[in-house]
């Protein structure tokens, strides 16, 4: 068989691989959302804006301090994570006893402010950011040309996602976190500083977004609006996966990237909507999401 549904298999493999790369971004972002939602009960609408901020910090470090990509990969998540912790201490903290809606609205407002400020400061046409010298070029895999940078993105994202999963599901710290989600008062009684843990968790979730932002900077235009469209898709990913499990959000993220990639080959017109169609279907069949526990 030389073609699959009229597409040469080589091209199909190429598209699957590309889908996996896009899935890396979905996975990292939905993972951050899931971690934050798990512990803080907050839907972090500012996630897209903080992802953008990560990319801008990378650009700023290069442009004004001469610090390259690898430094950015380390420093941007820390910087954005700190900003996130300030948000948590100053604002989100007051909302935990209230309806989820208020967390959503507050972070939505924060997203508007952050994006507006960046647009005022840096304009709308974006800033250039180059692929680091070590990762330029690519490898010819026979069926496609794979830029080295894209391969790095998949590896980096997989490592970060799995490390996060390991930390939350398999370590003592993770056990505290999960326990605090179930019953904060009891965990507090065991002498663990729950409020500080919550602050750090939010900072960590936001740092994941910033890390994704730095990874994205050489691929996409570093632009104040780069996060605002992505966030909606990531929400859909989270709904499909269900917020029950960390692994769920990782797997769903990668899987939906692949599905989207395939759609781009067979029916490109629908590639923006396919995730939402899947979401509606999943909800009709399994309202708690693929990996979620119903209530």
């Amino acid at each position, binding site marked *: 068989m030389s073609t699959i549904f009229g597409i040469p298999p080589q*091209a199909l493999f*190429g*598209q699957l691989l*590309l*889908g996996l*790369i*896009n899935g890396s971004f979905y996975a990292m972002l939905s993972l951050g959302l899931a971690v934050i939602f798990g512990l803080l009960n907050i839907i972090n609408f500012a996630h897209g804006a903080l992802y953008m901020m990560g990319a801008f910090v990378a650009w700023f470090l290069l442009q004004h301090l001469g610090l390259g990509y690898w430094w950015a990969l380390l420093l941007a998540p820390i910087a954005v994570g700190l900003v996130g912790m300030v948000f948590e201490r100053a604002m989100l903290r007051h909302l935990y006893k209230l309806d989820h809606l208020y967390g959503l609205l507050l972070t939505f407002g924060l997203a508007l402010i952050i994006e*507006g400020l960046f*647009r005022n400061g840096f*304009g*709308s*046409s*974006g*800033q*250039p950011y*180059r*692929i680091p010298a070590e990762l330029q*070029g*690519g490898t010819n895999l026979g069926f*496609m*040309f794979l*830029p080295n*940078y*894209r391969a790095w993105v998949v590896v980096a994202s997989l490592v970060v996602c799995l490390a996060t999963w390991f930390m939350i599901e398999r370590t003592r710290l993770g056990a505290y976190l999960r326990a605090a989600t179930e019953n904060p008062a009891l965990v507090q009684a065991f002498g663990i500083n729950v409020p500080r843990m919550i602050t750090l968790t939010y900072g960590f979730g936001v740092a994941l977004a910033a890390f994704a932002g730095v990874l994205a900077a*050489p*691929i*996409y*235009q570093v*632009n104040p*609006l*780069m996060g605002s*469209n*992505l966030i909606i898709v990531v929400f859909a990913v989270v709904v499909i996966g269900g917020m029950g499990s960390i692994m769920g959000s990782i797997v769903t993220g990668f899987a939906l990237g692949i599905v989207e*990639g395939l759609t*781009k*080959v067979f029916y*490109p*017109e629908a*590639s*923006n*909507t396919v995730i939402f169609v899947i979401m509606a279907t999943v909800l009709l069949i399994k309202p708690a999401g693929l990996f979620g526990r119903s209530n």
Partner: protein
Amino acid sequence: MTIKRMLGTAAAVLMAAGTAQAQMSDGGIKIGVLSDMSSLYTDLSGAGSVLAARMAVEDSGIAGRSIKVEIVSADHQNKADVGSNTARQWYDVDKVDVIVDTPNSGVALAVNEISREKNKVFLVSGAASSDLTGSKCSPNTIHWTYDTWALANGTGNAIVKTGGDSWYFLTADYAFGHALERDTEAVVLKNGGKVNGKVRHPLNNADFSSFLLQAQASKAKIIGLANAGGDTTNAIKQAAEFGIVKGGQNLAGLLVFLTDVHGLGLPTAQGLIFTEAWYWDMNDANRAFAKKFSAANRGIHPTMIHAGVYSAVTHYLKSVEALKSDADGKAVVARMKATPTEDTLFGKGTIRADGRKIHDMYLFEVKAPAESKAPWDYYKLRATIPAADAFRPVADGNCPLTKS
């Protein structure tokens, strides 16, 4: 509370007591710059367009002849309802005589209708839709700088003639992208080229790799980008990443501005070919304008849209002064059409009956980093498209004004 008062600080009021102003409606000429001040098109129009209008007023020396000119500005936020509300309020309450710029075809078409209804003047520099001088043409509107047909024609024509005879289109999947693709494809075919294929991508698509691979597999010599803004810049950036240009295929942008190239950086954008109406580094007059402009605009150099605003306002003031009245929009536009245009930036030109301003267009190629000698030194000229061939023939436009 009126817009007029709110905008007091933003307005440039050039006043002198005298007699001539009595001839103008409401004591003077009032120019409204309606633009995108907060979103996608901010850099290529926005505050720069207000600045360009102000420079045109200053350079006209009209204040010395005792005519008061005031400039107001507002952000349409790329929302047709906000833009149309502002336009109506400007015309009805604030006595604005002419609206200029207005990027975003949706907003521009709305203002086009309102200007016709209120018999005012609308000078479009920012919007692309060639419908403004086609089926939607109006006796109150002049489309100044460029349009989709001119871009498609200029780029398509010149590239096919220089050997780029097989094309693959990356098209944004909505009306604007379809129009660009359709117009360019027609030009390519007419000149003996062929289209190897096309793919429709969703608007605001972040990842183009999968579409670029399809384009690569098509073996077409030219990949035409029938999209705009972030879609174009992302596609160009990722084409560089996948080694498409190095592999021997060339990218043709169908709607690219100087600020987009600046945002991409030369290492990424080099080799890109596209059509524009004006470039700051072409002659001394342009350079002088750019120097003054960028000093007042955070270093951002003028795009063709800014230059178009300057040119349009200059010609408007001249015509109104000659007519000694700005009251009747149709009469002003008729006068503008009857008078040949001349200004320092666009040189000599004319305005056709359908409202299309006619001038040369240019095909540019983005320089390689080594060729660029100074900041914002980005383009080299590949071809000049003479005014006579640059725009859609009147007969093809279906403009009701041109039918007897």
